[in-house]
């Protein structure tokens, strides 16, 4: 018997009752499209998180104090030591202080970030207008400031902020620039901030030499691990206490985000697997009915010379054709569904090729597995009984 005849035979069997065949495949269609859609949501979320974290700046290592500020050992003298490490390109300090920014009658609770000129480069910040703080601002501890995009629009509305004087708590700063919007990172808004020289922050606002965090940029992607080790060694040398500082790697944050979306994808895939299982049982059910209905056909086929394995192949082929066509439809609906989800809920989705391959092979496996028992029953049928059956 030729393989092509096997396919033709299976198609003939299914086309005998097309609507029933369609209903039977429904479980597989839903299962496979659920696999595609859930994985696409997971992949989309993962990619979005990755790009958000990447946007914060690349190759970043963050240093923060291990002790409360009164005992902090992360101070100004650490900064040049870190910048001297071979695999470190540059480092920028960051001192955060919350307060109220006001201009005229507008006031907004915000965060002032005391930092240095290279923050722009390390944290991948873009300017919308004016300039960022310069090295001269840092050295002279000037009263210049740069506003985040949201803060600028909240305070100044239509007005041009450049050159205007803004109050932060009880001190006044002159606006020299406005940063471009960075968008929502999912953790905190980075646009409701104002940047001031860290030296000014220390002298006029905090009154000490502490630095909240230092963002360290490695020389390259490949040197991340080396840079991490070098910074660790330097900090240990400078502070003499491994509990005095905390080091975190951007890759750790990425891994954490990835593991969260992986867990979600796994959970949703579990649901999809259950619906595939239900679909498979549906196929088995209908195939058993089909075998009973077609006892006479099986008897005729056996009488004219069909071997047991040819009958087996015919019915397994039918089940496989059912579930594979369900799988293909499911893939199509999966593409459509993730498109709709992006459109309606504006969730980012990305259909993963692997999930398409997975969906297809799962549907094939389901068909063969759940078709095996009915086919085995058909193959073992006594031809005389089949011919006698009304």
């Amino acid at each position: 018997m030729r393989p092509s005849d096997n396919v033709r035979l299976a198609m003939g069997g299914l086309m005998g009752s097309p609507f029933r065949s369609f209903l039977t495949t429904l479980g597989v269609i839903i299962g496979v499209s659920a696999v595609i859609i859930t994985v696409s949501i997971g992949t989309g979320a993962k990619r979005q998180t990755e790009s958000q974290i990447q946007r914060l700046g690349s190759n970043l290592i963050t240093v923060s104090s291990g002790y409360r500020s009164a005992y902090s050992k992360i101070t100004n003298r650490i900064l040049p030591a870190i910048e001297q490490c071979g695999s470190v390109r540059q480092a920028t300090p960051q001192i955060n202080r919350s307060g109220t920014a006001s201009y005229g009658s507008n006031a907004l609770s915000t965060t002032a970030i005391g930092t240095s000129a290279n923050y722009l480069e390390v944290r991948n910040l873009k300017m919308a207008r004016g300039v960022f703080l310069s090295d001269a601002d840092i050295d002279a501890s000037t009263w210049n400031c740069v506003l985040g995009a949201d803060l600028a629009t909240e305070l100044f509305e239509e007005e041009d902020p450049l050159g205007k004087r803004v109050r932060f708590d009880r001190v006044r700063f002159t606006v020299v620039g406005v940063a471009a919007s960075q968008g929502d990172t999912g953790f905190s808004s980075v646009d409701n901030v104002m940047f001031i020289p860290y030296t000014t922050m220390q002298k006029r606002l905090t009154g000490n030499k502490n630095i909240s965090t230092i963002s360290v940029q490695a020389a390259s992607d490949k040197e991340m691990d080396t840079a991490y080790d070098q910074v660790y060694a330097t900090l240990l040398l400078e502070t003499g206490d491994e509990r005095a500082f905390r080091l975190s790697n951007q890759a750790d944050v990425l891994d954490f985000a990835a593991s969260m979306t992986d867990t979600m994808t796994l959970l949703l895939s579990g649901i999809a697997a259950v619906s595939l299982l239900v679909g498979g049982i549906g196929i088995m059910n209908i195939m058993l009915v089909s075998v009973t209905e077609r006892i006479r056909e099986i008897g005729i086929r056996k009488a004219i010379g069909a071997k047991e394995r040819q009958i087996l192949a015919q019915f397994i082929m039918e089940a496989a054709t059912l579930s594979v066509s369900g799988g293909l439809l499911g893939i199509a609906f999966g593409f459509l569904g993730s498109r709709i989800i992006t459109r309606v809920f504006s969730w980012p989705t990305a259909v993963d090729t692997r999930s398409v391959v997975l969906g297809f092979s799962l549907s094939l496996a389901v068909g063969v597995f759940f078709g095996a028992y009915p086919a085995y029953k058909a193959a073992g049928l006594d031809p005389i009984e089949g011919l006698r059956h009304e």
Partner: protein
Amino acid sequence: MSLIELKDVHKEYSTGRGSIRINALSSVSLTVEEGEFVSIMGHSGSGKSTLMNILGCLDRPTSGEYILDGYVVSKLSSDQLADIRNRTIGFVFQSFNLLQRLDAVSNVEMPLIYAGVSPRERRETAIKALEMVGLGDRTRHRPSELSGGQQQRVAIARALVSRPRLVLADEPTGNLDSAASREIMEVLRGLNSDGITVIVVTHEPEVAAYTPRVLKFRDGVCIEDSSAGLGGALA
């Protein structure tokens, strides 16, 4: 060598969870030569259908030997039996046993599918077989669009499409009126004159009248063989 040789064949059925045993055939011995035209007569329950199933390699005797074309059937595997049914034997049934969803030519070419013949070749062969039974103009009709006599002719075309040496017809005229019955018997007689051995199971004397040799069965025993010892109807 005889085409069919039965030696002391018994067939027992047990029903009612094995408590009741029925002797469907007891100690049947007979030979059929190549090219014979034989009818097997008997009332229902006489064992003629059981004999037919055994001759057609659909069933195996409980004891005794069945030798078909030199092969001892009880020693063959189920795959080998399927091959014999496919190549050596053609079946014609009382209720035609055509697949309703297939047209005439697809029904006829079915045995060739299992023989592994290419689609084009088997279509040609099937159409030739339909022409032989006078249905060359009905190849695309479904069984439901054909009369009983025509359906039975399709079934005969299916039986002869793989050029069998033996055609077994089980009450081939049972569901037909007398005109159609005569038609079918003429077709079978035609097959026989082409050299194919034909065995017809029937309970109608008019049908049995077509065949030179008649075997009569009662209670699983062959009680009369019209040409016992002769063999060879064409001789």
